[in-house]
């Protein structure tokens, strides 16, 4: 199979996320900057895709487009077949609420909510804050090793602990896609490894789709497929595996 020029997955199944001729231009008071220049990308369900690129290459921009936090200047972004640009702000939000989990580099948690409340927030938003679901959430917290800190506020947790809670929170409502923007960018190597292992384990257990942005080669090793973001274009690394 040839993946060098087109970024199509060969899979016959319908891609969960797809970009078609997507261009993103930031227009800042006259100075226009083309961050993404007519790019295509298909991401299959269950795939673990890593976006690798230098700082300022457009990784976060791409993630924002995929989740509908931001809209493309032109081209179409489809989430499970739905064109995000055609949805209303509210519909995009509801889509995120039900189908997407987010992990950022830092400041993931709401400071005025306890660890447990942070974890339960997505369930509540999804209208699923039942006792059964809450119990599942606590199990998840136990899995990330923080069951003992459920009543603590985020500011007393270490950076690694915060990221672990953030991962649990991103998965608690059972989303189909997990978007992670440099989830270990703020952590020391050892802690980062722990967090990544955790991420890998949880994904392996659930078979969810992951799109993760990073500038670190080591972290990129986690992915099935590595796409380099460079000069407004996307380019699949030849040695990456495709499902």
């Amino acid at each position, binding site marked *: 199979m040839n993946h060098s020029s087109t970024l199509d997955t060969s899979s016959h199944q319908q891609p969960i996320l797809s970009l078609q001729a997507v261009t993103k231009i930031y227009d800042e008071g006259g100075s226009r900057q083309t961050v993404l220049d007519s790019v295509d990308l298909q991401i299959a369900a269950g795939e673990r895709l890593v976006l690798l690129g230098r700082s300022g290459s457009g990784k976060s921009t791409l993630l924002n487009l995929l989740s509908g936090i931001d809209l493309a200047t032109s081209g179409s972004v489809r989430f499970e077949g739905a064109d995000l640009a055609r949805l209303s702000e509210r519909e995009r*939000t509801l889509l995120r609420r*039900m189908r997407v989990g987010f992990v*950022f580099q830092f400041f993931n948690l709401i400071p005025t909510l306890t660890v447990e*409340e942070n974890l339960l927030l997505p369930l*509540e938003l999804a209208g699923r804050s039942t006792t059964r679901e809450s119990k599942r959430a606590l199990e998840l917290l136990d899995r990330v090793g923080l069951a003992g800190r459920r009543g603590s506020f985020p500011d007393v947790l270490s950076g690694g602990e915060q990221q672990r809670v953030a991962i649990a929170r991103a998965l608690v409502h059972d989303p189909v896609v997990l978007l992670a923007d440099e989830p270990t960018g703020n952590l020391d190597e050892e802690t980062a490894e722990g967090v990544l292992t955790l991420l890998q384990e949880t994904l392996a257990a659930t078979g969810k789709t992951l799109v993760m942005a990073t500038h670190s080669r080591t972290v990129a090793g986690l992915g099935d497929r590595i796409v380099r973001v460079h000069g407004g274009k996307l380019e699949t690394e030849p040695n990456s595996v495709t499902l």
Partner: protein
Amino acid sequence: MTRILRRTFLRHLLRHPWQTGLTGLGVALAVSIVVGIDLANASAERAFDLAIEAVAGRTTHEVIGGPDGLNESLYTELRSSGEPWARRSAPVVEGRISIGDARRSLRLLGLDPFAEPALRDLGADVFSVDDGALGDLLVEPRTVALAASLADELGVDVGDSLEVTTANGTAVVRLVSRIRPRDELARRAARDLLVADVATAQELLGQVGRLDRIDLRLVDGEADAIRSWLSERSGSVEGIEIRPVAARSGALDQMTRAFRLNLEALSLLALLVGVFLVHNTLTFSVVRRRPLLGRLRALGVQRRELLSLVLLEGAVLGGIATAVGLVLGLVLAEGLLGLVVRTINDLYFAVEVQNVSIDLRALAKGGLLGVGGSLLAALAPAREATTSPPRWALLRSQFEQRTLRSAPRLAAAGLLLCLLASALLAWPSRSLPIAFAAIFVFVLGFAGLVPAATVAASHLATPLMGRGAGLVGQKILGRMAARGVAGSLSRTGVAMAALTLAVATTLGVQVMILSFRATLVDWLETTLQADVYVAAQLRSGGPAQTLGAHWTRVVSDLPGVESVVSQYRTQALVQRADGTLDPIPARLAATRVDRRGFDIFRILEGDERGLYEQFASGHGVLVSEPFAYHRDLGVGDTIRLMADDGVGDFPILAVYSDYATDRGIVTFHRDHFEQHFRVAGERNHSLGLFLASDRNIDDFVDDLERRLEEVHSDRPNHEPLPRVVANAELKRLSLEIFDRTFAITGVLRLLAIGVAFLGVLSALMALQLERARELGVLRATGLTPGQVWGLVTLQTGVMGSIAGLLSLPLGAALAALLVHVINKRSFGWTLAYQLPPMALVQALGLALVAALLAGLYPAWKMSRSSPALALREE
């Protein structure tokens, strides 16, 4: 280096125009309130001074007599005494008259044109003769002079006739001279002045042979010479005194002082709220730059340099805002002036002021407060930000922690201040400044309690809000809204304190006014028992007009009248225990009242048994509560008055409640009064008629008016037609005056709320900047814009509710202090404290609405902001 530094600071200010603008607006508004009130007060005061000056000129002393003035012969004697000061004296007759349709009330001044120039600038420096000749006043009887502007306004020219009305009847006078004021001051003074020769004035006012006073211009020691000259003639001129003219303006000052004090207290509270606001926004703008300051420190910028930069910023911002505030203050003063003057006209006497005179002292005070307050407000955050280690400067959550930890310490300090205030209040003193200081300290202390109380309230509210929001499946969002209030204390704490203060002040003043009003209604119920009142036509200011004896007879003879209570009012000088004269004359009332009518006195102190008999038989007098309070007198004490038959001691039989005048009043039985004071005939100021129970009041009023008109048309030139007011109407009028008096406080309360509103708005705008990232995460997690709006609004609602709840005890306490301490000490009135639940509900609502309104825009902005952008910011 410093230029670049300065640029960093300037850019920060410009990059947050909302923040900067709100800070500036807060300072400007606070300054404008203080300056506006001051200017309005100063202008009104200036008007009083002018009114006095126009009459007194350069007069230094005056000789005065009893209520009916001086015998003219005294002046002739004085003039021919050959003493050096004799030539510097002039006779004065003064009274109120009205012109034409009786709508225009003027001051009639009877002067001796030949004696004047030695004494007064009238006709020389201040006035110039525009047309005609002043000398004609003396030569021709029934002639007057007017300011040219007034003559134009009335449409009269030299040679024209004018119809004038006085208590003595209607007469026709001729204008012989137009005088032109030389400057603005004189022009204002002349606006309602009509000048005549002494003889003409005497004739018009019905006091032939009597003068109101003799004006003198004296040099050192001459007053004593005149005093002894007067005492040599003591046989014939008992009760005649010489006193410095300043004492007269002192008395006026005294009268309006209490009123002005109340206003100033309000303006000070507004300023306090304003300083809080400045502190709030400056703290925020400094704290927000912690990372920047930390980085600059790391780059090697000295603490001192940073400190002076922050202070410079405070000074510049404060300076610009203060300048705007001063201009706003001028505008505000224009508006307030009308209210102040109207109140003083209602309460005391007629003045005419139309322009705000620029009082430099008031402007300087406002300027100092604005710039000084800004600097002071900037000092604390500046010091804090520049002395903390650079690393620490980066952590927002730690700063929040520190604020939380400092709340109990602040509360302890607040509690201490409250104790200090109680000690000040317990201090046995009647000093008003001490009372105000105590209130100020108390309010400040209470403000110190607000942050701790906010934290506690937010903790209490968290589970409640969680449960409440849980009903719609949003338990966590509910908790978040409640917790966020304590969690952002460093931003919202001061704004909450300001809102609490403003609402509490409003509540306090409102409850005070309601208590006052209820007391007044109650008192009117007791005092105004007569069914119908008859009085001379109202004149704006000046001595009230009296009714001739024949009116009393006419009224008493009407069928259905069971009894008549009459009242005559005048003034007399009071001799203090040490023999000196009190510069404020006592008001006297002489009343003829039977047993039934005596119930109108609500006795506060003294034995009511046998009181009427003692009073009617002239054993002593009744004094009103303010009179007893101000002069520290009680039942059993005596008052020494300068009566027409000599100095007399009058025992006090009882103290009764009276809210008609805060100067107090001494009431005599008419028979008793006439033993010691001269009254020309049986004249009265008012008559109260008690009707037979089967007499319909409306019918009676119709009959009465018809009868009065009949009598009047028989002798049209004799006396103006009296005024008839039914009981209910009089009560309504009294309350109307009361309400108008306090209209100005309503305006000021609104302004105070406005300042607090700005405080909350700026705090929320600050919060919006700070929480951008948090809200970005929430949006990414799936909160819709509507939910973000709801969250922020809910939180604002919690803030408003907490501030509202806290304002209730403070407001109730403030009202109690105003009622029991301030009003007692400044007016001598005992008011019944009342705390209507409706006022509490309103205060709560006010706080809530102010907070929610202030939150509207920030909430909208927060919900609309792009999450992608928010997440990019660190």
